[in-house]
């Protein structure tokens, strides 16, 4: 949107008043989707890994690392999973740029105290970190079904629906608008989500590749 307007303008002023653009790759979106699809009535959460050249600049979400599907508060396992995800990101030249979660109840689209605490911690390492709450009602349709939350004025606020995130011209974009439809296909027709595992699964069975989830990624991603 204002990528080339940096000359002569105070970047700090810009970054504090406008949220940076966020583009979500197919791999990242599919992983989030499979995570949520595998545990339909449970509160899943995880992080997005990506790059950003400078504070306030555009964010490219390249990958996702799923954490838990069974939590009520900031548990020890969440902390360990987050640490390991952060390490993995660093080793691969990436950063934790966002956090995602689905709540247990379809109608519940808030961040909640745990989400906020977690985002607060992530924000210490990455100033423009975004929270994405999976919208249970839109999930399974052709919509992205992600409600973004950003930090402004000392608190976490949902991006207003009138901003139409993930629609044309929005600051939030999927790398391709048909990702939700494709993801649904991979779940329904090909069961990709069944091979998917998060950190919780890994704790049950150490052979589960929660960090990469290579086997469940579709070839076209």
């Amino acid at each position: 949107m204002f990528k080339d307007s940096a000359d002569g303008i105070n970047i700090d002023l810009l970054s504090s008043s406008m949220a940076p653009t966020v583009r979500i790759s197919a791999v990242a979106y599919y992983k989030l989707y499979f995570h949520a699809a595998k545990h339909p009535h449970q509160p899943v959460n995880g992080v997005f890994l990506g790059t950003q050249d400078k504070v306030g600049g555009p964010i490219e979400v390249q990958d996702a690392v799923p954490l838990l599907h069974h939590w009520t508060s900031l548990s020890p396992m969440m902390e360990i999973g987050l640490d390991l995800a952060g390490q993995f990101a660093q080793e691969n030249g990436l950063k934790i740029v966002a956090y995602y979660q689905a709540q247990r109840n379809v109608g519940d689209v808030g961040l909640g105290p745990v989400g906020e605490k977690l985002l607060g911690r992530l924000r210490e390492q990455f100033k423009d970190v975004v929270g994405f709450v999976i919208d249970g009602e839109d999930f399974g349709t052709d919509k992205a079904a992600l409600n973004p939350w950003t930090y402004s004025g000392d608190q976490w606020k949902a991006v207003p629906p009138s901003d139409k995130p993930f629609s044309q011209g929005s600051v939030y974009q999927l790398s391709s608008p048909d990702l939700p439809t494709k993801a649904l296909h991979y779940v329904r027709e090909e069961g990709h989500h069944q091979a998917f595992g998060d950190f919780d699964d890994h704790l049950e069975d150490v052979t589960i590749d929660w960090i990469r989830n290579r086997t469940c990624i579709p070839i076209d991603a």
Partner: protein
Amino acid sequence: MSVSSALQRLANYRFNNSRASLDVFKHGQSLLKSGVTPKNDESWEFLEQLALAAIDLDKLDVADVCLQKLGAKFPGSPRVEVLTGIRMEASEPITTVLEYYNDLLIADPTNAAAWKRRISVLRRARSLDKATEELIQYLDTFYTDPEGWLELADIYVSNLLNPQNPFTFVQFAETAYSSGDLPLALKMFLVAIEMMERDLESPETTPPTGLAFRAWWGIKLCARHLLGGASGVTSSPSNTPVPKHLKSVDALATERVLGAYKGKELEERRRLVERWLSSSK
């Protein structure tokens, strides 16, 4: 018994937090009947005490008299409101009572007493999952309440077919950790491991799996924080001491966790974990 000695007796019970409902009721009721009107703070406490004893003995009419006087003197008092709730528990349907406590909590989410009553009603109504969930939430906020911790321990321990279930202790440990009580969390994780691995003959060839794996991770995390020495990290609302041989525990946990990552396929994950284990954030 004279009026003053009866009052003294009741005061003693309050001081010692003794339930003694029969005795309290006997003396309290006669005092009430003789028209003893409360003159100071202590005397209002007597009414509360008598109300509780009366409810305990199902003498609800006496409880109602006490409540009436208290309500008139302290309108809108949270303490009286909770007492009213307790009185309702004796005769109203559970849904009514729960709704009542709900309303109190909506009006004032910091009303710890109302919260605890609600949890105990849920527990009696056999909504154990809900009771536990709310108790955990309660302890997240009021984490220095030893009564709350004991209640949680009681729920976990008394509601299993097999009381020697290590899952209980892992769950308890994680709750304690989330509430900031690291020494308690560590202790519970260790108890769970003791249960699961005490008969392990050769640990080197038997890496931990499933629940034990999770517990060893928990031990490692706790030990690391406790050794890290950040301020306040060793403080324990439940007064659990830090174990003596913390460094050995930490070393053992490191070994056990790492031991699970064997074989070429797990190599990348092993390196990731190894790096985490050896850092001392």
